[in-house]
């Protein structure tokens, strides 16, 4: 394709449409736009030549590459665009200009970042995802959402600032800003970029912005949020840090620890947020493997395929919980149950999403996760492999069983509501269709996992891999069936912990409770310490200073107008220090 249209980064189109939607009062026209734009963007993307810089500009001494497509960015971009389309359908019943516009611009920013060929434009869109997405949380309108969104924004901006600092360093040392892999994690620039990406990917201890904010977002907002931010970070890792050993271990830890939080968490949307964390762990782990050896292609394919499938099925799960939230006003497991009676179709789609994320054969998770697992095993990381296998059972627990069981089955809450609106069902149906379509073998022409494998960055290696071998299906079934059996058994024995309302502490406690307390405490101390120090000084030097102060302070206001007296002491102390230092160093 040639012409000016071929130079248009689909993300830019979406951002522009998002801005237009922001000011478009006609509801159906606006929603029509938000549905049509991702479709147009997908067509644009499909027609774009790969491994060519479609649009580049040289300005301010930097080579900006605004639009570049290759195998890796293609699959991520496609997944983002599909998610944007499904989200737009899912939001059809709402009438909210701000949310429509920001959701579109947010998706657009993620796509634009994916197709950016230089780090400066990546940074700009990186920040744009943060700024646009925060409205999806704010729109929930609750006080908790307000605070969570402010924390979210602060952390996301911090990530952007770190990224910028890293970019500045890279530019200084390399003199070139094109997005390329870092060879070593030793240089400070690489570390800064690594941490910036790590925040967005929700690495362990940097993760809780995600669990803090996503469950507090609007019904539509949580669905939109689940698709982009973390996966953009995964893409950036695949681009810039493939094959760094650190990622293998970080990823493995990331798959394991959210499992435990998800078990005791009561809010099902928060459970999904933990599950998101765990799934991103698989991708990060795979990226860590992808540098050398045979594992390279397998691992990067695994990460990309997993990201693609994950965006769809995690979106589907968030959609089903969104539908529950929409109709019942809650997603707390302790208040739900028996909803299949009122929302059978939502139940069906939720179960399809649950089976996909648990990687049942014939569902998309199986086709994607197998690549990663094989790569880890192939490279000989036995412990990591065992951790991932453990986490797979964990996924089954919190996403595969807990979500559908406690929302739709289990103890009947007596809630009798309407089935989800048709547009929600349609969006869920489409997502469920994709989950199945890329999970099955190629029985139906044009569908099947091979369609997905064909789009992966290392196409030939992917096509040579067959997930449906007898032993593979058997072992996967053993894992899943026995795990379900464990559930059935524990439930029967009454050993399964009951769902109780409550807040589960996570590391965000550090800044939400301890940090806050520390600030208050430090503030008090600081206010007291200055005068206190002064008073110590008084005792040492007698009352002379007192008298001077009395003389010089009209109505005693001198003391109130800042720590003037304490400052005089500081002056003396500092002078002493400088003198001492000067004498010591020169003698």
């Amino acid at each position, binding site marked *: 394709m040639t012409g000016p249209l071929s130079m248009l980064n689909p993300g830019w189109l979406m951002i522009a449409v998002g801005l237009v939607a922001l000011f478009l009062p006609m509801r159906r026209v606006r929603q029509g736009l938000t549905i049509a734009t991702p479709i147009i963007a997908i067509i644009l993307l499909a027609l774009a030549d790969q491994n060519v810089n479609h649009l580049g500009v040289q300005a301010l001494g930097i080579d900006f590459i605004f639009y570049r497509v290759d195998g890796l960015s293609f699959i991520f971009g496609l997944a983002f665009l599909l998610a944007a389309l499904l989200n737009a359908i899912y939001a059809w019943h709402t009438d909210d200009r701000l949310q429509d516009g920001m959701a579109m611009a947010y998706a657009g920013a993620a796509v634009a970042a994916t197709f950016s060929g230089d780090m400066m434009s990546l940074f700009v869109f990186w920040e744009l995802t943060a700024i646009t997405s925060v409205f999806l949380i704010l729109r929930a309108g609750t006080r908790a959402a307000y605070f969570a969104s402010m924390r979210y924004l602060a952390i996301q901006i911090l990530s952007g600032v770190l990224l910028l600092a890293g970019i500045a*360093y890279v530019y200084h040392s390399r003199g070139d800003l094109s997005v390329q892999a870092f060879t070593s994690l030793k240089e400070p620039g690489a570390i800064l970029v690594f941490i910036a990406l790590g925040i967005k990917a929700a690495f362990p201890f940097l993760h809780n912005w995600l669990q803090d904010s996503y469950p507090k977002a609007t019904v539509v907002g949580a669905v939109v949020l689940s698709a982009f931010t973390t996966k953009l970070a995964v893409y950036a890792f695949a681009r810039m840090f493939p094959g760094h050993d650190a990622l293998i271990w970080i990823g493995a830890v990331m798959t394991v620890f959210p499992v435990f939080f998800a078990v005791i968490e009561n809010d099902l949307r928060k459970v999904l947020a933990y599950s998101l964390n765990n799934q991103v762990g698989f991708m990060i782990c795979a990226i860590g493997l992808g540098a050398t050896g045979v594992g390279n292609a397998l691992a990067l394919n695994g990460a990309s395929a997993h990201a693609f499938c994950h965006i769809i099925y995690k979106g589907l799960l968030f959609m089903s919980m969104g539908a529950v939230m929409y109709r019942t006003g809650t997603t707390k497991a302790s208040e739900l149950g028996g909803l299949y009676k009122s929302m059978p179709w939502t139940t069906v789609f939720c179960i399809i999403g649950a089976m996909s994320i648990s990687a049942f054969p014939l569902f998309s998770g199986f086709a994607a996760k197998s690549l990663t697992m094989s790569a880890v095993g192939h490279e000989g990381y036995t412990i990591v492999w065992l951790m991932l296998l453990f986490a797979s059972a964990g996924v089954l627990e919190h996403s595969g069983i807990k979500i559908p069981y406690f929302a739709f089955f289990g103890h009947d809450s007596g809630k009798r509501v309407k089935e989800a609106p048709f547009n929600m069902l349609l969006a869920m149906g489409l997502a469920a269709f994709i989950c199945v379509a890329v999970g099955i073998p190629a029985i139906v022409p044009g569908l099947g996992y091979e369609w997905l494998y064909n789009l992966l960055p290392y196409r030939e290696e992917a096509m040579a891999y067959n997930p449906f071998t007898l032993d593979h299906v058997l072992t996967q079934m053993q894992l899943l069936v026995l795990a379900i059996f464990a559930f059935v058994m524990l439930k029967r024995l009454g050993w399964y912990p009951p769902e109780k309302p409550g807040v589960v502490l996570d590391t965000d406690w550090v800044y939400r409770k301890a940090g806050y307390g520390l600030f208050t405490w430090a503030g008090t101390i600081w206010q007291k310490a200055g005068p206190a120090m002064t008073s110590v000084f008084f005792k040492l030097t007698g009352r002379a200073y007192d008298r001077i102060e009395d003389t010089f302070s009209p109505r005693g206001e001198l003391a109130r107008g800042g720590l003037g007296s304490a400052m005089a002491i500081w002056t003396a102390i*500092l002078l002493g220090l400088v003198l001492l230092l000067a004498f010591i160093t020169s003698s």
Partner: protein
Amino acid sequence: MMDILLNAAPRWALLHAPVLLVMMPLFLAPVLALVPNGRIAWLVSIFATAASLFFALILLGQVQASPVGVVSYDIGNWPMPIGIVFRVDALNAMILLLVSAVGVLATIFSWPTVVAEINKQKHALFYSAFLVCFAGLCGVAITGDAFNLFVFLEISSISTYVLVALGAGRDRRALPAAFNYLIMGTIGASFYIIGVGFLYAATGTLNIADIASQLPSLAGNRSVEAGFAFIVIGLGLKAAMWPLHSWLPNAYSYSPSFVTMFLSATATKVALYALIRFLFTVFRPEFAFEQASFTFILMPLGLAAMISCSFQAVFQTDVRRTLAYSSVAQVGYMILGVSIGSIAGLSAGLFHLLNHAMIKGALFMAVGGVVLTYQGTTIRDFAGLGRSAPWTMTGFAIAALSLIGVPLTAGFQSKLQLGYALFEQGMWWAVALVVFSSFLAVIYMGRILEAIFFQAPINPRKFRKEAPILILVPLWVLALANIYFGINTEFPLGLARDAAAAAFGLEAFR
């Protein structure tokens, strides 16, 4: 451009630019005290500051054209060690340009706020005091004599105390703030003069260049070291170096808007200039005791200022106090740049000095506009102003983004330069702290911006009411300068680099 100016200027201006720059405002000041009409005093002040700007530009041109990069002017034709000499190189040419340019903009801006805040009988006296202060600051920047520097420092300081105290008409707390400032400023000046005394005892001269030439032969001299300590602390206090800054927040928040705006952009900068002059021209970074105090005193203090005062800024409820604490934090950046001890570090510090003057100038101008039209400076008072005063607040927002260090603004460029200088020394942990401090700036400016643009006005009477055009024009000049110099850094960065080279005694002219 400089060539045109040098060719067009009359001969007397070229010959006597250094002395005219200072003496014009200084001699006009007592005349103003006799003028009955405030408006005439204002116009005369604009004329005086504009004339100084003109001479500053001439000096800059002469310095850049000079083969040695120095313009010397012997007062009364008394030759150097005996007489007082005005000595201009790239470093003080830059400072003079900054002070006089800000002076012009501030004076233009001043009229509406002075009318609103100062007693009508005192208008002319107010401008008289301002011109004295202005002349004093220029004098500090231009003189080549250590004792003369003290004199000018006191001239500017004493008039500043008066100016701050005049804020009492609006807020009585200006009086204790001015008094506090007087005490601290006097301590600082006394320390400085004690330090100069020590140096005089060791070298027998007061001329800065002369002292500098004698010091290397005096290694290990105790009185030189004592003089160093006193001068660093004295000037550090004047420059609001943490923790010697506590005079500043009060002085800035209670003085008249115009004074705050002018002082924030010039006073600490000039003191910092004097500090740099002593640290790099008189003493040298090669001296062991100076190297040690860079590493163990100045750098920790700079970093502490960045972090601690940014935190304090976060917790303020008054916009002017927030900005004042932010100023101390920004001085921390400059001190950090200076304490690296390399040319790159010093030029980063000076570059930030220039940019910060533009940023804070614009911010305080916008605040002045708000004080004028809405009579309030708490963050709550700013709620919803984005709708009722869009031009004022957009100018504010641009400067605020620049303060945070958003790309494409001047503030970003100076942090970038500072980052490069730190990386060069391998101090990437310090870069992390700079980044963290910028992050705090996002919070404290973000709070204000959020109130301005996203909250509903608390006061229904806040209908559309912009600041007067006399405020808007200089405000937008500075705001646009923030953007222009954020994209095209050639001019200010060139100035800062030349200045840093000059401070090191190198002749790195283009």
